[in-house]
């Protein structure tokens, strides 16, 4: 286990940071005129579509810690790019389905952008009641229903759709379907509704076998999102500390007051916890797979709360300027509160942890 980046990871991190600095206005632009050039450059110049993907599909190798460091960096800058949708979520679904060969090479090459359309209007990540259906039609399948909260759903070339087939929940690759942009609270991660009205889909993975595939894929996605959240929380703390050092009231910097200092110290403790937990979980996914399911729930629940807390503290420390539209503090709060809901609320993740602990034999609650 390594707690810092290796040389290659550090180099990539620096390159991402430099490119993001050149597109410093990208997050804010997402609220008016999105900057598609950033992702083109990240794909073309930095090769981010290959990160963490096994070499047989043209990737840099199956090392999830690589993904972790990229996500942390993108989260720090609120980068409005579809890395999570395509390189994490869709890629993990494909890898776990056993059918990665049909799409992944094109995704790595930057020719295809994919995302996953899994939940419906109720936002239920247990997929207990799917209303979207699929029926066979020769070699292909015909899908009907609506999918909601689909990240980057409007710009994706391919949607990996979960639908109820006669054999049970099944995944399909859909290229043509109506998409309607949702008015996302966090515009840096666009959300769409996907409307399937007799849309054609191609089978991904075994018919009726979607749930175990998604269980594993969402494990990885939860960890990656937790890394992104840790990065966002770190950025909030950096902003708040920088401001508290320079802003003066009552004749001294506000950071010298214990009321501010102790608030930020608590954020520091949670941030250190969040970052260490997510990085360890990412490592465990490759090297200690037995620990990964619980750690995925752990860091998704913990980091969701930590990011929201850091974003709120940042606004509080900035005082009046912190609640203006012009200040970036609210961009993090919007991202934090949305990311917390993205893969199911912390309570749902904690419920899964409790389930594991309380169903384990005495003394083996790990």
């Amino acid at each position: 286990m390594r707690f810092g980046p290796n040389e290659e990871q550090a180099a990539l991190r620096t390159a991402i940071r430099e490119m993001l600095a050149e597109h410093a206005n990208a997050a804010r632009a997402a609220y008016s005129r999105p900057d598609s050039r950033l992702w083109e450059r990240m794909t073309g110049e930095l090769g981010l579509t290959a990160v963490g993907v096994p070499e047989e599909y043209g990737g840099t190798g199956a090392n999830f810690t690589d993904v972790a460091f990229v996500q942390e960096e993108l989260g720090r800058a609120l980068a409005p790019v579809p890395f999570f949708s395509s390189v994490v979520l869709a890629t993990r679904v494909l890898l776990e389905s056993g059918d990665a060969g049909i799409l992944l090479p094109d995704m790595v090459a930057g020719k295809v952008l994919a995302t996953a359309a899994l939940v419906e209007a109720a936002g239920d990540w247990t997929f207990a009641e799917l209303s979207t259906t699929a029926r066979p039609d020769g070699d292909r399948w015909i899908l009907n229903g609506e999918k909601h909260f689909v990240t980057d759903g409007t710009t994706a070339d391919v949607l990996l759709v979960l639908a109820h087939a006669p054999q049970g929940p099944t995944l399909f690759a859909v290229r043509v379907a109506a998409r309607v942009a949702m008015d996302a609270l966090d515009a840096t991660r666009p959300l769409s509704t996907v409307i399937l009205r007799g849309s054609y889909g191609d089978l991904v993975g075994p018919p009726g076998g979607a749930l175990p595939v998604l269980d594993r894929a969402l494990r990885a996605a939860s960890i990656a999102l937790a890394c992104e959240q840790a990065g966002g929380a770190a950025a909030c703390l950096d902003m708040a500390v920088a401001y508290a050092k320079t802003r003066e009231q009552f004749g001294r910097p506000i950071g010298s007051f214990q009321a501010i200092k102790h608030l930020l110290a608590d954020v520091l403790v949670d941030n250190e916890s969040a970052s260490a937990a997510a990085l360890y979980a990412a490592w465990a996914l490759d090297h200690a797979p037995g620990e990964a399911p619980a750690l995925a729930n752990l860091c998704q629940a913990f980091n969701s709360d930590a990011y929201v807390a850091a974003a709120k503290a940042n606004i509080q420390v900035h005082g009046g300027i912190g609640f203006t539209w012009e200040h970036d503090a609210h961009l993090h709060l919007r991202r934090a509160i949305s990311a917390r809901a993205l893969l199911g609320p912390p309570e749902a993740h904690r419920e899964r942890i409790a389930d594991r602990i309380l169903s384990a034999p005495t003394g083996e609650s790990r």
Partner: protein
Amino acid sequence: MDLASTPRTEAFRCGVRRFLAEHLPPGWRGLGALSVAERARFTPRWRETLREHGYLGVAWPEEYGGAGLSTLEQSALQEEFVRAGVPLLPLPTDPFGFSLIGPTILRWGTEEQKRHFIPRILSGEHRWVQGYSEPDAGSDLFALRTSARLVDDAWVVNGQKVWQTAGDSANWIFVLARTEPSAARARGLSLLLVPIEQPGVEVRPIRTLTGEAEFCEVFFTDARTDAGHVVGARGDGAKVALTLLGYERGAASGALYAGYRVELERLIELIRSRGLDADAGVRRRLAWCWSKVEILRVLGLKTLASVQAGATPGPESSILKLYAAEYHARITELALDLLGSDAMVRSGDPGAAKIGVDPLGTPNSPSAWQHAFLTARAGTIYGGSSQIQRTTLGEQVLGLPREPRPEGGRT
């Protein structure tokens, strides 16, 4: 920072497990399962067994009777002992001898001091307590007033120290005292080694909120100690006393984690036995506790990795202290919530109470959890209160400006 669990460490861990399997009494269920009387019989015998097999003073160089273990090995050793529910530092005074004054003497002491004091810590002849806090110098430690002046060939000590854990069984105390009255605050202090068994030293028990006397206070009235019993240079006491606290926290994080795991298992049993395992609120709070303990493990691994990479533990160690103390206050409160109305009544075997996390085998009774809940209040105060830790983190890790001190009294 790489944390490699090396084959050498794993072999060492296996050796520890073998030792425990061979030497623990048959049917061993953990120290917590022993009555007070059984514990009093077991502890000194166990200490002798540890000494015979080289498990005392493991961090110390071999030339002074230690085992010269690496931080990683110490951590593994502590963890295995906690899991087995058996003490690595059996006497209540041992943590102060082995984790505080021993390393401090080895780092700052003269060769003569090392040859004299270190073997006596190992043998148990010298039983140590700390003498830092005073009634008017708690969080503001360097406001301390206990004084020492050199008269002929001896230090003459006057003043009062407070919060001595195990003070009733100690016979030596390391005292941070003001020796240079003209120097400002921290610069006027020296660390002195003072024998307790003399007319000028009086030890009185302090009854805490649990009803038991877990701490003492110590009064010095013209108490004397040899002029040579100063560790480090005169006036360097603050630096000498505080440098090694970080190292101790680094190696102890694995044991802390293992101890919290033992406690959490006991809480899970409590939840099951009271039929609360389907209660949604209880389930979430349990998951929260489990998460905090697992994160503590990861934070501990990270600390170990940086120590292993040669970093000197600095103010970041306040993260672990703050995190652990606040967590422990929360989980013990959850336990009392689970007890419902039984939380109001002392009932069941209280176990052999102590400060800190209860060892394996501690009874799962209302009395034992009540004791844990009450003592957890002390955990966020002693060893630097949570507020002091937050100030340390804010100023020394985040680099926030210091609170203005009156009269420019910088420490």
